[in-house]
């Protein structure tokens, strides 16, 4: 291989390939896939649903137009599985116009009609698709839940993507071997990967004639590789990466359009066995092409694809390897909006890893990994029922939801619970404070019994939410996934992973993203203080909230002066612990379609903005339509005593109950890091941020296990906004918006403002 390509050449090609990818303005492949599906639907009607889907997949893979770019050293793309849909990276996105991602036919609005893809052609496929059992059942679910979802007391969605396939068996033994043991529909589906490799080999073959000598050698090498994999197992890193891409491509096509947040797991461990002594530099060069693969078109529309490095074994030993460092090199040099990088840390993580991470945190505009505390994840998931042997394979689906690679169908974003909205409806007796519409028949709130009234309503809404979420999962189960199931335990069980009557994966659950714990805790404490110190306000509070405090400045001022979560103040911090714990218990008590628990996940992937827009003024003094707190973080502006106190509050939360994950963010001012090299700053980051948050606790309590940071200041980002050409000459300035990173310059103004606002420097000050 090194005779055909030098490491420098591979890198140069990867950069050209990325440029080429970002120049793509149209994404039509998903539509073609849907069109093919419609065209051949009748042809396979006599088969069962799994087999029918497998045949359709084979048709799609056989017919979809393919190409090999002159810059490609590997064949494969996931462009044909994605549309230009994800709202947050669209500069015209407006918080007030957001209506969720739930309508599966809405995607047909994301393709611009032209002479080839005429309106008529698009509408025809859309109409056909609308008739499917999946779409009609899902529509019924949404119709039934409309009163609850209208102003987002809760929200549900069908979960596509959001899983971590285990390709290790396939990489080792090859697809042909898997086909020998797979059930019939899965066997058919697996064949798609071989068909795809064959088609790419043919394209490469056809390019030989017009290729110069150098390219000819490279194409011949590609053809040789495609003749081996994925049919046979991979025997070197080149083959392993090629095979991985083809499997990924088929997996995404099976769920087109928009299977967001499929994730890789520990890429360093997946590929290390195939490195065969390749140097770090050469390995990094090859992995750059692997990373480019995850970027789809002009804005990297396939979002939240997570790749992990690092982590520990069951005995506590570190599992970092040479490929971990090569992968970091590849990430740093390419600095692309996808795939997102996460690092698993633990007490025995070598300092070398922290030193090498310094450059990510402290180079402006460079991506930053999110951080996981593997020790805590072991404790939380172990207690949650994951077998010890599976704990090293804890991976991250999408933003921050921990799942076991290849064994866990967590339906991570199945349901979303908006606690501040439920508080609003508790206080008002079911009437929206924003619109005056009666959204539920609830008894009118009483401040003296507010807590118990609220929790009762949380139970009510959680149970309705679970019913709707299960409805969405059942609707989706009409769309079988025989290919993906092969990498999720289906090879052994023979069961489709979406089956709602038989469990095809070793672990199964449904996610519930819980929003707004800091607002609830702050509100309860403020109401206590109001009753004790200003009983004369009791009768006025609801009016004050309904009028968004207009004419009630005195009440708002008082509410704002009460204790707030995030400042290491005992009463309100304990309240937050109580809110998180009780709501987690209520959510865990809900059962999904297989009678497994819903998993409490305290994350808010920009939904703190979107749902906040639908919540009226709250008794903590927050005004109507303002954002909610992000994940488990204090509400913006309420933690004012610096990083130390904010971390101390964070350390108290019941992470052992957050088995579905949680989100937390710190905006860090680089001025507090004084070492004169990136390596030194990396160690300082360990000492000042990672150690106190993850590894300082001497109690038996489970420590925090997730963090993302943006190391910058509001002033710096204002400069980037004002003069993008000066501060981001490449056109790419990577920031994190939540679990995912994005090109800051691709974002809508509302999302840019959210990033700037949540840097919240007073909450993270580390010195006078």
């Amino acid at each position, binding site marked *: 291989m090194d005779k055909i390509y030098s490491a420098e050449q591979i890198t140069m090609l990867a950069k050209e390939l990325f440029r080429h990818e970002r120049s793509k303005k149209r994404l039509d492949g998903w539509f073609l896939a849907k069109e093919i599906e419609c065209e051949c639907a009748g042809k396979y009607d006599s088969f069962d649903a799994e087999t029918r889907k497998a045949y359709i997949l084979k048709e799609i893979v056989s017919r979809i137009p393919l190409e090999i770019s002159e810059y490609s050293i590997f064949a494969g793309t996931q462009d044909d599985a994605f549309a230009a849909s994800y709202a947050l990276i669209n500069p015209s996105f407006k918080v007030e116009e957001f209506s969720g991602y739930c309508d599966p036919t809405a995607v047909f609005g994301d393709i611009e009609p032209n002479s080839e893809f005429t309106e008529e052609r698009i509408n025809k496929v859309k109409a056909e698709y609308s008739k499917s059992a999946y779409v009609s059942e899902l529509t019924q679910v949404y119709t039934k839940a409309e009163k609850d979802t209208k102003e987002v007391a809760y929200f549900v969605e069908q979960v596509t993507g959001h899983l971590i396939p285990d390709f290790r068996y396939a990489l080792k033994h090859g697809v042909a071997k898997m086909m020998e043991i797979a059930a019939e529909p899965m066997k058919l589906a697996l064949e798609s990967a071989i068909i795809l490799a064959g088609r790419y080999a043919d394209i490469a073959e056809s390019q030989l004639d017009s290729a110069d000598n150098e390219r000819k050698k490279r194409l011949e090498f590609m053809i040789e590789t495609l003749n081996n994999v994925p049919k046979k197992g991979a025997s070197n890193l080149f083959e392993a990466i090629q095979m991985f891409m083809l499997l990924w491509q088929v997996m995404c096509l099976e769920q087109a359009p928009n299977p967001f947040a499929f994730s890789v797991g520990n890429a360093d461990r997946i590929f290390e066995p195939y490195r065969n002594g390749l140097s770090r530099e050469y390995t990094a060069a090859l992995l750059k092409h692997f990373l480019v693969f995850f970027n789809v078109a002009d804005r990297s529309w396939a979002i939240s694809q997570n790749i992990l490095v690092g982590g520990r074994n069951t005995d506590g030993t570190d599992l970092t390897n040479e490929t971990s460092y090569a992968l970091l090199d590849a990430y740093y040099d390419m600095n692309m909006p996808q795939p997102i990088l996460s690092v698993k840390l633990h007490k025995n993580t070598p300092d070398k890893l922290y030193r090498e991470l310094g450059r990510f945190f402290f180079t402006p505009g460079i991506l930053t990994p999110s951080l996981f505390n593997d020790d805590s994840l072991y404790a939380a998931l172990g207690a949650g029922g994951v077998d010890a042997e599976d704990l090293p394979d804890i991976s991250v689906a999408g933003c921050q939801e921990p799942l076991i690679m290849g064994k866990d169908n967590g339906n991570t974003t199945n349901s979303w619970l908006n606690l501040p909205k439920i508080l609003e409806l508790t206080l008002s007796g079911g009437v929206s404070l924003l619109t005056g519409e009666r959204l539920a028949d609830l008894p009118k709130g009483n401040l003296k019994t507010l807590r118990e009234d609220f929790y009762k309503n949380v139970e009510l809404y959680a149970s309705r939410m679970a019913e709707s979420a299960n409805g969405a999962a059942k609707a989706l189960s009409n769309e079988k996934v025989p290919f993906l199931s092969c990498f999720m335990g289906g090879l052994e069980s023979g069961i489709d992973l979406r089956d709602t009557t038989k469990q095809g994966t070793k672990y199964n659950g449904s996610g519930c993203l819980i929003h707004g714990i800091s607002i609830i805790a702050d509100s309860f404490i403020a109401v206590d203080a109001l009753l004790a110190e200003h009983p004369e306000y009791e009768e006025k509070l609801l009016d004050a909230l309904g009028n968004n405090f207009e004419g009630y400045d005195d009440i708002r001022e008082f509410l704002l002066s009460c204790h707030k979560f995030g400042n*290491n103040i*005992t009463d309100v911090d304990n309240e937050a612990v109580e809110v998180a714990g009780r709501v987690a218990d209520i959510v865990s008590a809900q059962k999904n379609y297989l009678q497994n628990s819903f998993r409490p996940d305290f994350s808010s992937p920009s939904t703190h903005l979107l749902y906040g827009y639908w919540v009226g003024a709250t008794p903590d003094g927050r005004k109507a339509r303002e954002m909610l707190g992000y994940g488990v973080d204090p509400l913006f502006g309420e933690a004012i*005593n*610096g*990083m*130390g*106190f904010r*971390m*101390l509050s964070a*350390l108290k939360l019941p992470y052992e109950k957050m088995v579905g994950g949680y989100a937390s963010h710190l905006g860090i001012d680089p001025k*507090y890091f004084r070492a004169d090299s990136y390596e030194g700053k990396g160690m300082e980051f360990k*000492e*000042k941020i990672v*150690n*106190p948050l993850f590894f*300082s*606790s001497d109690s038996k309590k489970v420590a925090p296990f997730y963090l993302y940071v943006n190391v910058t200041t509001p002033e710096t980002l204002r400069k980037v906004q004002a003069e993008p050409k000066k501060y981001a000459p490449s056109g790419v300035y990577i920031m994190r918006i939540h679990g995912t990173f994005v090109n800051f310059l691709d974002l809508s103004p509302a999302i840019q403002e959210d990033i700037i606002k949540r840097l919240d420097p007073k909450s993270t*000050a*580390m*010195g*006078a």
Partner: protein
Amino acid sequence: MRIFQKGFNYSQDGPGNRLVYHLMGCNLSCKWCSNPEGMDIDGKCTELTTKEIVEEILSCKAMFFSGGGVTFSGGEPTLQFTELSELLRLLKQKGINTAIETNGTHKELISLFPFIDHLMMDFKHYDSETHRKWTGAGNETVQANFKSIAASGKRALIRIPVINGFNNSPDGFVSFFREFNVENIRFEILPYHEYGRVKWDKPYEVTNGFITKDDVEKFEKMFNENGLKTVRM
């Protein structure tokens, strides 16, 4: 106790990450003071009992990394001497690393030594009259406390805020300090700054207080040549 500000600070008010309490009230009125809001003992602040403070400090242990702990600063912490003394004693019993930043004007300062891990004391001027003119009080007690520190062998950091027009020459300091056993004493030269100027509601009287980098180096050079070890934090 009366506290006007608290927060964590890394390696600036003692080693490691430290919880710094600024205690209300000061007996001096230095013209360059960067925390003028802490001068008036009757000013607006939070009141906590020593028990509450100890509880708060114990709840913060997770943040005392890299050899950190608690620092009492001001204002002037020794103005609340009885409570401070009790507090330091309790904290030492609990194994908390303690530090104080003082202007060195309290006569009983030496009695706190057993309970202080890191003593930081200002020594603003060697001449009592000049000291009085710029800070409102003479420096006899400061000198006496310095002598006690030297005699006891207590490790201490002596801080000299160097202000143009007030003390911008090392000679007098050096002649004073070199008479003593300074084995365990370190000196820090703090160049004048105006970070606190905006907080003054009375006229700010220092007109040209800034010194140059060369001035700082001149101080440090002369100190070190005379066996007075300087540090930069």
